């Protein structure tokens, strides 16, 4: 048990080193001739107007909210699916009820127009 997570821990470190290597190599090999125009924001040759970090469409945020519901649902339902053999039919139906409540949430968001892009 300890070893399986040790593997993941080392894997994260090694997986970070592998893509780091070519970047470090490039830092030694690649030319470095910066000038103000090169370092400017790239917009196909036109100078950028105003601030980049402006207000954005609120719709993106609403989708993220709806996603959150289902993401948490998944975290709850995975154990339910694993313990499937040990559950009697009643417990399975209870899990189904849980899903149906979430479907109710999805329908609510749908009716409210949260899923419309406009």
């Amino acid at each position, binding site marked *: 048990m300890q070893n399986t997570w040790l593997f993941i821990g*080392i894997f994260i470190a090694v997986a970070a080193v592998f893509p780091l290597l070519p970047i470090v190599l490039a830092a030694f090999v690649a030319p470095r001739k910066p000038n103000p125009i090169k370092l400017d924001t790239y917009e196909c040759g036109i100078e950028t107007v105003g601030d980049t970090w402006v207000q*954005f469409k609120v719709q993106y945020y609403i989708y993220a909210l709806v996603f959150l519901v289902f993401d948490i649902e998944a975290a709850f339902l995975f154990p339910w699916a694993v313990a499937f053999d040990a559950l009697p039919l009643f417990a399975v139906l209870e899990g189904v009820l849980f899903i149906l409540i979430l479907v109710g949430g999805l329908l609510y968001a749908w009716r409210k127009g949260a899923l419309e892009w406009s």
Partner: protein
Amino acid sequence: MSFWQDPIGFLGEIIRNFLFNLLPEAWATFIFTLLSVVIVASFGLIIVIFLIWVERKIAARFQDRLGPNRAGPYGLLQTFADIVKLITKEDVVPEKADKLTFNIAPILSVVAVLLIWAVVPFAPGWIGTDLNVGVLYIAAVGSFGILSILMAGWSSNNKYALLGAFRAVAQLISYEVPMLITLMVPVLLARSMGMMEMVQDQDVWFIVLAPVSGLIFMVSSIAEVGRTPFDLLEAESEIVAGYHTEYTGMKFGLFFAGEFLHAFTVGVLFAIFFLGGWRGPGAEEYRLLGMVYLMLKGFLGYFIVMWVRSTLPRIRIDHMLALNWKFLTPVSLSLLVLTAILDKIYGETALRIPALLAGNAVVLLLGYLIMRAVSRRQTKERPTFKKRPVAKPA
């Protein structure tokens, strides 16, 4: 267990004995784990070099071209030439960019995909680490990719990059929902989240028990990779190059490599969850054979991704979101419910396969009928225009 039956296990045992005789136990464990980590991780990266060539060659064939054919036999060395080129390119970091985030993002995009390979079961006994929560781990680690795209787009201080990142949030987050729900179906059928058990439980491939779930998993995975028809986050004709507009040289190359590896990983995951992983004739005795089967099946999934990519045009953002929230999510939820109930009732009997197949067919048919009814209603509501006379050439 001879060398030919299990070459990696055979060599691994020799190295393990050697290390444990030479070093104290803690150090030996550490070094042995490090060795296996390096083997698994470099396997993932080496396969990318091969994949880029394969994809360019096959995409070229789809478009009636030859593809790379100059560097080496059949252009096999093209990718190496590209790597040399990318490394010697100047690395431009925009002045206004958030430097730290800007530099971490491409690394994270590769790490996120590479981490999945830690739990890929290559053959019986050949697995990085057999986590008992493997599927949950894949879902968790896969989400890092979204984070890297968001970081790249946000820190570039470029409007197009930021737009790409916003689209990424809307798209990748949305498609994660049906992907997670359809992932639950194989978990439920195997009664386990461990990747090895998942494969061992597939006496009948899960694509037979849950064909529609497999289809939805494939579609939402393609969206997760961000390939055509779901490549809105890097739509060239609309937002320059999307989230990696400001990246040059090797940093761009890492995003590129991460995407290719992700596409193949999706194929491999599809093979593990639905096509029986390494299972095939003789895989139990000769483990190398199991790995060959997995790679072949994974490549089949990858080929489907490429095929879809070269066939379909990009879809509009509202269509993309509507497809996810109004079709894939309800269908995958009803599939999960149906699979749970049917498997509880018929799970132990001979009726398991026909019952589950019938359930899938019913859901697919209902989904299709509802879609057709809705689209007909929308067509009726659409405003009609009078035909104008067309000027005819004299």
